């Protein structure tokens, strides 16, 4: 049963991954990307990594992919023109990809966990029965890996500074509502009372 679910998720992930790069409509590409994320999340659940799976759904699907969708829709991208170079280099790319794939397959075929390294193995995941996945991550994230956590914060900060720096413009002449000035505006500035003689028009 587990094997069936694994192959289902895996096949769907690969197929939708392929569709991401081949779909003609960019919006479709993003939607396939979301499908891929879901399948990968499923694979993580099979591995017993429910925390990563949930993060996958919340962050990648909920935030990243939706953002992509907005961008793609706003930018009106012509996928066909973008793809002109693609067909030209496709054969070469295919060959390189094939070569790399075969080689990696060979490497995995000779899987050999270096025996000397057993002694130095890093902290292994605790058995699922003892501690839940989320708890296990929580136990190390702010203690053993606090340095990485802080650095990640810095990375995010830099990203934030950057996006503001590259996009924020102090434009002149933009009209903004200012309730205070609105409220304090004297009556004379707003209304002019004119005597209009009857029958003559303005």
């Amino acid at each position, binding site marked *: 049963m587990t094997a069936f679910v694994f192959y289902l998720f895996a096949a769907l992930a690969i197929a939708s991954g392929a569709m991401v790069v081949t779909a003609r409509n960019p919006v479709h590409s993003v939607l396939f990307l979301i499908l891929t994320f879901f399948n990968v999340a499923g694979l993580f659940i099979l591995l017993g990594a429910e925390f990563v799976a949930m993060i996958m759904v919340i962050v990648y699907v909920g935030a990243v992919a939706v953002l992509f969708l907005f961008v793609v829709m706003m930018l009106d991208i012509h996928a066909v023109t973008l793809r002109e170079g693609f067909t030209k280099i496709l054969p070469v790319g295919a060959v390189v990809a094939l070569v790399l794939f075969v*080689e*990696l397959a*060979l*490497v*995995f075929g*000779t*899987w*050999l*966990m*270096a025996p*000397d*390294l*057993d*002694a*130095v*193995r*890093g902290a*292994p995941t605790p058995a699922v029965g003892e501690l839940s996945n989320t708890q296990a991550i929580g136990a190390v994230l702010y*203690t*053993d*890996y*606090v*340095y*990485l956590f*802080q*650095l*990640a914060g*810095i*990375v995010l*900060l*830099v*990203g934030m*500074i*950057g996006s*503001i*720096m*590259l996009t924020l413009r102090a434009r002149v002449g933009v009209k903004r509502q200012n309730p205070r000035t609105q409220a304090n505006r004297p009556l004379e500035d707003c209304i002019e009372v004119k005597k209009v003689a009857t029958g003559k028009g303005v």
Partner: protein
Amino acid sequence: MSELPNLIPALPEIFLALAGMALLMLGVFRKRDATRQVGHLALAAFAAAAVLALTFGGPRQVTFNGLFITDAFAVFAKLMVFGASAATLILALKWMEQENAARFEFPVLVVFAVLGMCAMISANDFLSLYMGLETQSLALYLIAAYQRDATRSTEAGLKYFVLGALASGLFLYGASLIYGFTGTTNFDSLAQGFEGAETVSPGVVVGLVFIICALAFKVSAVPFHMWTPDVYEGAPTPVTAFFSVAPKVAALALFLRVMSAPFGDLLAQWQQVIVAISVASMMLGGFAAIVQTNIKRLMAYSSIGHVGYALVGLAVGSAEGIGGVLVYMTIYLFMNVGTFAVILSMRANGRLVEGINDLSGLSKNRPVMAAALAVMMFSMAGIPPFAGFFGKFFIFKAAVDAGLIPLAVVGVLTSVVAAFYYLRIVKIIYFDEAGDQFEPMTAQARLVLGIASVFVAVFFLFPLPQIVLAADTAAKALFGG
């Protein structure tokens, strides 16, 4: 409740992180433009961080659960990074004021980039290495695209970002392969595991090859160099100056540590790859620069060539070779900073120029500037008694001592090719018809150029023994000495 990790070894990084955030606040909440204050405080922060590194860095210390290391090597590399960043920041601030492009985010991003570099240098685990790398890279992408209204600048930033992301992908893939085949990402554990190992799992080596490729991208070695000329040319010149020194030193230091500390015992496995990269870089750096007409592009190829020479020292794989690389990079740093001080002053008729031919006849208009540039070029070409010669000398000596004679021969031959274009610049500034006169150099550029050219010119007299000694100590630290 676990104990608080020992923060003392990481004081320079912690200080820089806090300083970066403080400067950001200062910049945001100051009413008027605060670039100058922020910039000067950033310089002060580098100085303070350098002091901290010198004071607390010395002996080998590991903290943060083995993620972070400091030793003589880290201190040496960090000092180089601080020095290079400070020098280029001094140049950049003035340049940006002149160009009306001053924004306080620039020094702040430089501080964060330097923080990332320090984290790279002090990484003792693939995870911390990656985090440092990303901190640095992200900041660098941003400052490459800093002139957001200039197409070339944003294009440079974007190219750098896309390719950098690819390199990061390669790195992560390699790191995960290594984790998968060994069960650890910690350098000390890896070194312990490989010590005296007779057979190595192919997965580890393939992973290592992926990591080498990613790091080669960061130091812009062939064939992962393609971004360099475009980014160097497109980015604002002070940014190019910064790119050509600080990140290069940091990435190379990282390269040295990764290859020597955890994988030192696998020398036989990776040596050929490094040799190939090194030879390709030296050749490309020599040949491709010849036809360049833009001086920033030329410097890009020049830096590719210099990285090739530095990698010769890495390929040797001994403390002598590593020491040679450190000496080489120290000298490289001074030469590049000096040269960029001149390039940043290439301003004629109120307009910036960056063609090599714009330098023609410089000796008639600006004799001192011309002389200093000539010193830099002679040094880059490796002509004694200038500093550049000694850098190459130590590297090639290490290569010959280790029996890598063909590599040394290729190095010498390509440096002859490279000498062609360096000396061509000397010829242009001394023997060609005088072109438009450049405006006088700023005081900052003068200061930086003066220090750099004095260093390069009298290197053989005064600092040579001290630097060689320090580099030697630093290199030995990598080999547990």
